[in-house]
């Protein structure tokens, strides 16, 4: 019988990426219902040093495929390695990060092992209710109590759909980075390491990488930010980001943006939050002059605290805001930056 909640870890330049640890965290939550082990699959070359960290974040077992063929990400060797792992271990569930790597390898693996794959999910849960179990059985699932329900946005976030994969295994999904939460790191945690060999042939390297370049520019990772102050069209122009940056600086926050400002060239693309940008869930998301198009909201609505400032009292951003201020951000933000600095100075001196 298929068994285990498998997470294909993403590593770049020998470092495990957060999205994999987030998925390990989510797998530990699924384990509460399914009772299967959380198994991380780590592919790369000379990366055994990363294994301990995966245990610290909740994995029961790590399957390590260490091979020079896996040094850089290349579709075919990675597809082959994951497929071999599936054949050998027969997982119940397999999760991938919905990054430009996960979205390249996961569909090929799904096709090769003839199973379904649900893209860019934002919610995962085991089937539990009578209705869910009945539907799974009706659709041909022999073990409905082991069925995974996978929720994802479609139509630019207008519609959510919950999907199932009732007849084939593993049940596979990609999950967007920043959506799931890691569990607290526990450095005393350990687990079972399984080294797994894949017989690669020269033909598996069916493309030639002429150059692999890591971007020099320190790209901003908004998905990691605890605090984000974001600007939208309402800030008026590229210089509007000066006020935004000032508030962000006072708070120790990162600067975010709506798509409109990126398209207008007011700020770099890596600052964009939303359906076509980053999905973020910081402790604070301050939306300044952002109307709140559904595509933007889809990327920030899970933030812990949302504060919105907008002149237009009917802006949809107010529907998701915990605190909405109808007013002029050009008046409010400079005073806010000053107030935050004063508060912090007073706190430091007390």
């Amino acid at each position, binding site marked *: 019988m298929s068994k285990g909640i498998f997470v294909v870890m993403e590593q770049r330049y020998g470092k495990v990426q957060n999205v994999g640890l987030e998925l390990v965290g989510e797998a530990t939550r699924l384990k509460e219902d399914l009772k299967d082990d959380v198994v991380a699959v780590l592919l790369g070359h000379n990366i055994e040093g990363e294994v301990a960290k995966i245990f610290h974040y909740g994995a029961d077992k790590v399957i390590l495929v260490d091979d020079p063929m896996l040094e850089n990400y290349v579709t075919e060797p990675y597809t082959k390695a994951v497929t071999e792992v599936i054949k050998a271990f027969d997982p119940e569930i397999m999760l991938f990060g919905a990054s*430009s790597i996960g979205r390249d390898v996961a569909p090929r693996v*799904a096709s090769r092992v003839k199973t379904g794959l649900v893209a860019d999910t934002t919610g995962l849960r085991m089937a539990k209710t009578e209705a869910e179990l009945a539907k799974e059985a009706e659709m041909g699932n022999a073990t409905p109590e082991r069925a995974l329900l996978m929720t994802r946005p479609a139509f630019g976030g207008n*519609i959510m759909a919950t999907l199932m994969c009732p007849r*084939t295994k593993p049940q596979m999904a990609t999950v967007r980075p920043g959506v799931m939460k890691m569990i607290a790191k526990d450095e005393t945690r350990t687990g079972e390491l399984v080294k797994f060999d894949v017989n690669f042939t020269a033909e598996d390297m069916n493309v030639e990488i002429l150059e692999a370049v*890591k971007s020099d520019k320190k790209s901003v990772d908004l998905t990691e930010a605890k605090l984000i102050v974001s600007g939208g069209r309402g800030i008026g122009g590229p210089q509007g980001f000066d006020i935004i940056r000032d508030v962000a600086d006072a708070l120790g926050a990162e600067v975010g943006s709506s798509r409109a400002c990126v398209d207008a060239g007011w700020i770099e693309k890596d600052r964009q939050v939303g359906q076509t940008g980053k999905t973020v869930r910081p402790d604070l998301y301050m939306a300044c002059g952002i109307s709140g198009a559904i595509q933007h909201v889809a990327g920030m609505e899970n933030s812990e605290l949302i504060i919105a400032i907008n002149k237009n009292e009917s802006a949809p951003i107010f529907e998701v805001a915990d605190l909405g201020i109808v007013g002029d951000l050009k008046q409010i933000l400079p005073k806010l930056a000053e107030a935050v600095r004063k508060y912090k100075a007073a706190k430091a001196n007390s």
Partner: protein
Amino acid sequence: MKIVVCIKQVPDTVEVKIDPKTGTLIRDGVPSIINHDDKTGIEAALQLREQLGGTVTVVSMGPPQADVALREALAMGCDEAYLVSAREFGGSDTYATSGIIAAALKNIGYDLIITGRQAIDGDTAQVGPQIAEKLHLPQVSYVEEVKEATADYVVVKRQYEDGYHIIKIKTPCLLTAIAELATPRYMSVRGIVEAYEKEIKVLGFEELKNDLELDMIGLKGSPTNVYQSFTKEVKGAGTILEGLSADEAVKAIMDKLEAKFII
């Protein structure tokens, strides 16, 4: 070189609205367009044809109305167009869809296949790689530039979140296009006239059945099924404050930040 571009007709999602009473999408009057990434793929193919010679074939799977998208592609300058359409294909998920398109491509023939990275309605980015898998072809996805192209291979720049690879890939192969790859040209008047004189060939179930996994197509054969669709639940309403002075507004924000231990 025979270049085949796979395109999808999609609703212009920016204009999609929800019926507040039924909670379903209002599709009436929503314009249909060629998916952005796919249109980029068409442009890239046309540029390669200008450089290498050969033909550009455009293929779309969908209902008969998808012929509008195919005509637009012809008007942009594509040489021939195929509509893959049959009742049996309806409701296919990405696995089933890629199997059907792969069967069509076997019939049509190809040296180079280009798809868009993803469609704006489904956003899955799965069909391109899955077509490549069904046809046992190497792939490069997220292609932002073609550096070099010959009859035997192409050299492309593959985008990652934190850098890029320059990859040499032999043909036949499949590439998926992102917006940076090319800026689609407009249809020409002559192109539009010619587009309506050309025949759009239809590949249906009968034509493709010998190349299909018959138990893996359509709604019934798709490995994934929709359990339910719903509109997003709106978060409980927060506090909206109007008519405050700037100082009062700052006070309200500071109180909130303090209460939530942000500062």
